[in-house]
């Protein structure tokens, strides 16, 4: 499975207090508190499992994780290497 828009949205809506209408591809997930520190660990676990990549601790930042678009961009860059 790949990490794309629809897998991310279904992960977020199935696992967190998130409704589809609440978020778009650029909605900040962490800086506005949609996801908390537990959410971070779960989201990272989901991405690692789904995309078959490993998150380094240095990669845990808003640039890579704060929106659906940023996650997709990060995963693309990581898998392209």
């Amino acid at each position: 499975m790949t990490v794309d828009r629809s897998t991310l949205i279904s992960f977020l809506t199935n696992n967190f207090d998130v409704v589809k209408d609440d978020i778009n591809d650029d909605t900040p997930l962490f800086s506005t508190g949609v996801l908390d520190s537990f959410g971070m660990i779960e989201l990272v676990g989901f991405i690692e499992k789904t995309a078959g990549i490993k998150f380094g601790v240095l990669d845990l930042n808003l640039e890579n994780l704060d929106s659906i678009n940023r996650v997709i961009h990060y995963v693309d860059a990581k898998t392209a290497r």
Partner: protein
Amino acid sequence: MYLQNLYDLVSKNLPELKSTTALTFGKTKITYGELDESCRALAAWLVSQDVQRGDRIGIYVSKSIEEVIVTFACAYIGAVFVNISSQRNAAQVAHVIENCNIGILVTDLRRWRHISEASGAQLKRVLLLRGEAGDPITVSYDQAIALGANASPVRPTALVDTELAALLYTSGSTGLPKGVMLSHDNILKSAIASARHLENSAEDRVLGLSPLSFDFGLNQVTSMFLVGGSVALQAVAMPAEIVNTVLEQGVTGLGLVPTSWVLLLRYLDEAPNQFPDLRYVTNTGGKLPPQALDALERHFGEKKIFLMYGQTEAFRSTFLPPNLFAAKKGAIGYPLPNAEIFVVDPVNGLCGRGESGELIHRGSFVCMGYWKDPDATAHKIKANQHLVDLIGHEKVVHTGDIVSVDADGCMWYVGRNDLMIKCSGFRMSPTEIEDIVCREPLIEEAVAFGVDHEEFGQVVHLAVGGNQLTDDHLPDIMKFCRSEMPSYMMPHKLAIWNGPFPVTAHGKIDRPKVVNALRESQLTVA
């Protein structure tokens, strides 16, 4: 200036520190003068909404400067602020709102949408920090501030220092979250004790990552206001973001829960940093694992390291002075200023050196009790028969934490005398978790327990039983848990127990047997 209520912490900085920064959040800054102005405006709006001294105001928002303003506006008029952790879910928020009869809630549009169904009927007014809902019950924060600023100013309400200032919801040993009642005096004395032992001054700026619904997060703000320092508020617990804020904002004091420490220390192993402005580091929400203590010494050996121990019902009890860190690594140390600590064995009484018993806390931080729960209060805060000759029948906090006293009188945390589970600073009782999961119709009984976990301290494992249950139900049960439980309560391991749970001679569930069976993984795991 004489400090009698919480708002005095803001007033005492005026006019000298009027233009000094009190809070930062990202690139936004607010001075003590601006803080005072906003608090007064919001206080005037609250009064216009007929809020009376002693009324409870709910604050359910993510980290923000506005959260602090609302909190101190409540203190200004003698209303009781109830900061609700943003990690709680709709059902828990509804419980809090109902339990302490909150009439006005401060939240944001997204959270309001989630809780309006469960809690809407109970609320009179909802103040929205972000977004507009367009319904008559809600009003935007900016509008309220503008209305309040134009209304005739209200004077601070004259309060007594022993009256209720705040409710902090935490789990008791059974059932739903309980509101720990903190007086103005409790919070002021905690601020003074913190500032004293951490040697805080107006030069200090602490990282405010812990929520105000945690005693530590609230204390960070009150102790900085006490000394005229500032708080760099931070919403995100990601290690890179913590490092950025500490560097950019010139943070001098860094206090984190174990979960955040573990991640940050791993980050620093790969990308070390000197943090030139940082003066001290400290922990809250549970003890640090041994590897983290080593890493803390590796990365912060040049700074002061304060290890701390405390419980919401008595704020903080002990700390390990930095000069003893190397010799007593991992100890919880000695009593905080203005706290007296007794270690008591239920049978043999007061413990001496080399012995262990329950940590009992005496002093000004001892809370007023649990809101509308006299039984739980009487169980936790009471006289101790072994101390009667020393302090009479003075009420002291029975922490339920077992500590040992070494040959130097230094205390070490041993464990709990009950089954409480602590995950990333959140305390919960197995009963609370079991009661929730048993609301799923197929589940007849359940056993929840804590298992040590590197990042979270402990996590929940859960065994459920029921005649009709099969492994096919596991995904649905997990889904049920997700909808009913806050994230820290979610089981990391879920198993179906085939047949009835084993029982003891007294007919109670034999918990150790269930725990051992689950540890050895003889069961299906989700």
